[in-house]
């Protein structure tokens, strides 16, 4: 520990020049500072969120009415595919990595991420990958159009857009694996004295467990898309029955990645909410220890449920039963978390600033997604709902109202610490209520569409589905518009926001609120001595030095 600490400290004060705040484009291209890299990640994720959002609106425009108005079916399929890939790999995952980069060292008293130069490369791999996906629209045959799941053998039929997608997935996989190694090593090795594992903030726990999930499953994804690549170009027959392969094998391997991936996008959200709810309830997190165990159980169970995405492939009854029971079991630790959050609010002294609103919105709507998830886990019912709009509704409740709302909550919560300024509370609250309303107008009717028999991934539909589709499209455009309010609020507040106090939230008690606002460019270059309570609560801090 001491050896690592001293290795990470800047040489000494006289040789100061090289770690003064760099300027110009070089500050970003050669960034090794965790705060700069965190900001890069967040800006990248936001631009991908806009890109993926525009694709979503292209989809909703076509589905506004029956008939084909704007796009040919082939292009429509490209939109659904790229919308999924970009939101998952370009927006949500990088946003969480960005927050971990920014906040983890501040929350556990580390000087920076453990591998600062690798951190730079983890980020700078992402823009080329995004560029490949963007460019794939322009190649002959267009972008990949097999759905974000890229099921074989459909994905072996596509044009070179599929190859670009596979390459992009490889690059993004390498990036997220490196990012995860950094998070794991930072948390395990660079905690300040006193910040023990069973005391550290839930966001650190969630990031740690998520990082392990990423390292476990991203290589699996890389493997399966490589098998598609060799089937496409090098004459292998992994997924071609005529050559002794099996199309369903693709789905098994993909979902062995795909289900833990769902939790890669959910666990960090749980971590964020586990700080915001206590802060604005002015009361410690209820059941910290059970939160840690619940998060770990969810992570372990996530490896045992993959085939619930495949109930209609014709698995034997025993396999259906096993995967159904295992999936239902996940409801138990997830329920514990929801109860713990409500237990935290109970008898608190709550106030409802924007981060708290988004956190409460998260809990309610994520639970709606969880309950429709229980319904889907029942294999007998899933036969009717698999591949319908019910599934689309379900996972958007989990990923938009879940992951995305938690990200908004986090950005509002930590914005003062990151920038030294307050955002506009009025426009923050407006953004919340606007998003909450139109999110539900967009996605709630999709439950009805799915139940009534509308398959997903179709560009045109029978007239009986018109009303709810029209409603969903109107909702989607309004929801999209609302995100510009968020953007404008952030941009304006960055320059003109009211200066923020070191601890703008009365109930905040973790380490990042103990240092100046905005956070110094180099923080904790000397580790402080901490007296820490559960969930990273700082009871006393001695020493510690910043630049």
């Amino acid at each position, binding site marked *: 520990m001491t050896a690592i600490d001293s290795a990470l400290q800047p040489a000494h004060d006289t040789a100061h020049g090289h770690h003064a705040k760099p300027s110009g484009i070089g500050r970003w291209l050669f960034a090794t500072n965790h705060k700069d890299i965190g900001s890069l990640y967040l800006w990248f994720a936001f631009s991908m969120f806009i890109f993926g959002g525009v694709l979503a609106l292209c989809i909703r425009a076509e589905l506004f009415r*029956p*008939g084909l108005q704007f796009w040919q*079916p082939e292009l429509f*399929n490209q939109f659904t595919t790229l919308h999924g890939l970009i939101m998952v790999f370009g927006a949500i995952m990088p946003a969480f990595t960005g927050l971990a980069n920014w906040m983890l060292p501040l929350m556990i008293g580390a000087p920076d991420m453990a591998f600062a130069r690798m951190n730079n490369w983890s980020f700078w791999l992402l823009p080329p990958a995004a560029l490949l996906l963007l460019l794939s629209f322009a190649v*002959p045959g*267009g972008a990949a*159009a*097999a759905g974000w799941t890229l*099921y074989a*053998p*459909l994905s*072996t*039929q596509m044009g070179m857009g599929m190859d670009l997608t596979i390459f992009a997935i490889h690059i993004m996989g390498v990036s997220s694996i490196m990012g995860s190694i950094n998070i794991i090593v930072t948390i395990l090795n660079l905690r300040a004295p006193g910040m023990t594992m069973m005391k550290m903030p839930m966001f650190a726990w969630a990031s740690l467990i998520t990082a392990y999930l990423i390292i476990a499953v991203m290589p699996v994804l890389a493997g399966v898309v490589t098998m598609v690549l060799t089937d496409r170009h090098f004459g292998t027959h992994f997924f071609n029955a005529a050559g002794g*392969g*099996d*199309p*369903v094998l693709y789905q098994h391997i993909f979902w062995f990645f795909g289900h833990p991936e769902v939790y890669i996008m959910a666990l960090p959200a749980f971590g964020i909410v586990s700080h915001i709810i206590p802060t604005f*309830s*002015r*009361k410690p997190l209820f*059941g910290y*220890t*059970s939160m840690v165990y619940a998060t770990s159980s969810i992570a372990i169970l996530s490896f045992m449920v993959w085939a619930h995405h495949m109930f*209609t492939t014709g698995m*034997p*009854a025993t396999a*259906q*039963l096993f995967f*159904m*029971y295992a999936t239902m079991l996940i409801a*138990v630790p997830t*329920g514990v978390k*929801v109860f713990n959050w*409500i237990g935290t*609010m109970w*008898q*608190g*002294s*709550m*106030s409802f600033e924007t981060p708290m609103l988004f956190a*409460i919105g998260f809990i309610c709507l994520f*639970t709606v997604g969880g309950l429709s998830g229980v319904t889907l886990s*029942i294999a*007998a*019912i899933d*036969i*009717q709902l*698999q*591949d319908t709009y019910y599934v689309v509704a379900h996972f958007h409740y989990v990923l938009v109202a879940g992951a995305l709302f938690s990200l908004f909550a986090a950005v509002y919560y930590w914005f003062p610490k990151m920038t030294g300024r307050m955002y506009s509370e009025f426009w923050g609250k407006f953004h919340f209520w606007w998003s909450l309303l139109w999110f539900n107008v967009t996605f709630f009717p999709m439950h*009805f569409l799915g*139940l*009534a*028999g509308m*398959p997903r991934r*179709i560009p*045109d*539909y*029978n*007239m009986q589905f018109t009303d*709810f589709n029209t409603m969903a499209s109107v909702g989607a455009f309004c929801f999209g518009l609302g995100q510009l309010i968020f953007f404008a609020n952030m941009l304006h507040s960055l320059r003109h926001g009211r200066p923020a106090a070191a601890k703008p939230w009365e109930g905040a008690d973790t380490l990042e609120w103990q240092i100046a606002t905005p956070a110094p460019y180099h923080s904790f270059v000397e580790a402080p001595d901490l007296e820490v309570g559960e969930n990273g609560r700082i009871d006393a801090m001695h020493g510690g030095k910043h630049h």
Partner: protein
Amino acid sequence: MASRRVLLLLTGWSPAVLAAGVNLQPPVTGIAQDIYDLHMLLLYITGGIFVLVFGVMFWAILRHRKSAGHQAKHFHENTTVEIVWTLIPLLILVAMAWPATRLILQQKSSAGAELTIKVTGYQWKWHYDYLDDGVAFMSHLATPQSAIHQVADRGEHYLLEVDQPLVVPTGTKVRLLLTANDVIHAWWVPQLGVKQDAIPGFVRDSWFKVDRPGTYRGQCAELCGKDHGFMPIVVEAKAPADYQAWLAARQKAAAANLEDPNKIWPLAELVARGEKVYTQNCVACHQANGKGIPGAFPALDGSAIATKDKPGHIDIVLNGSKKNAAMAAWGKQLSDTDIAAVITYERNAWGNHTGDVVQPKDIKAARGGKA
């Protein structure tokens, strides 16, 4: 229409709304009925949980707020409560799993079927083969292209209508053997409670037993490429006597339609027939004007293969393309006469004026006795 629906949604759940497509379609098989009932049970349980849990939360939000002057109490754990709220969900899940398990076992027991039909998914149509009765046919989307662009041409069953439905007898346990020719499709008819992936190279089975005569509609449920949204399924359930009459008529027609493979056709007849074959099978990719979709599907109008290389043309239609997996091997799907007709059509349509005639016997020869 939309505003009325929204209004009803906002003002409460009237039966009219329930009938207008917010729940599973009315079941017509025992399995579909059981799924419907189990889903309602789940809806009540999960709805109850939601109201209960968030009732507590909103109570806290109302009462335990700073603006109401509430002081925070600083408890942060309670072992008894935590054990209780772990065990209660577990018990609820067991209660859900019990009926679900029984239903799954029932869904999976396809033994004792009285009629077996092989279903093959193609891009983008379904083929039905009554294995014991010598009747087989392709089922295509019947909605005309014009309806996709013009509201006036749309009927009630827009995109959910086919030229030849699957006909089954009522009160009979029908077993489906499902497979696919190219990519994965999924055969789904909501009112029957059947959804089963059709996987190329593998055979999966499913079953249903319809009680009421009627027409039941569904769609392909697994993304299978460009026209995934345009390959509906229609099942017509007839009383056993009507079914037998239909079957006999089909068998008679099939016998009458057996074509002499050595017949020599005149150009005009081949072109006329070829145009029909083209419209049913080729138009989705190569388009009605023969121009294809640049970058994705090659043009036939003016292409070398459709104007010069006749053996190559026959080969690619019969055996598919080695370079582009989207071009299927039609030899497995179409008769010699149909293939001869469509090739003749392609060589004489649009700007292609080769005057070439390809006869069924040429196709037979090209198959090299393989067929």
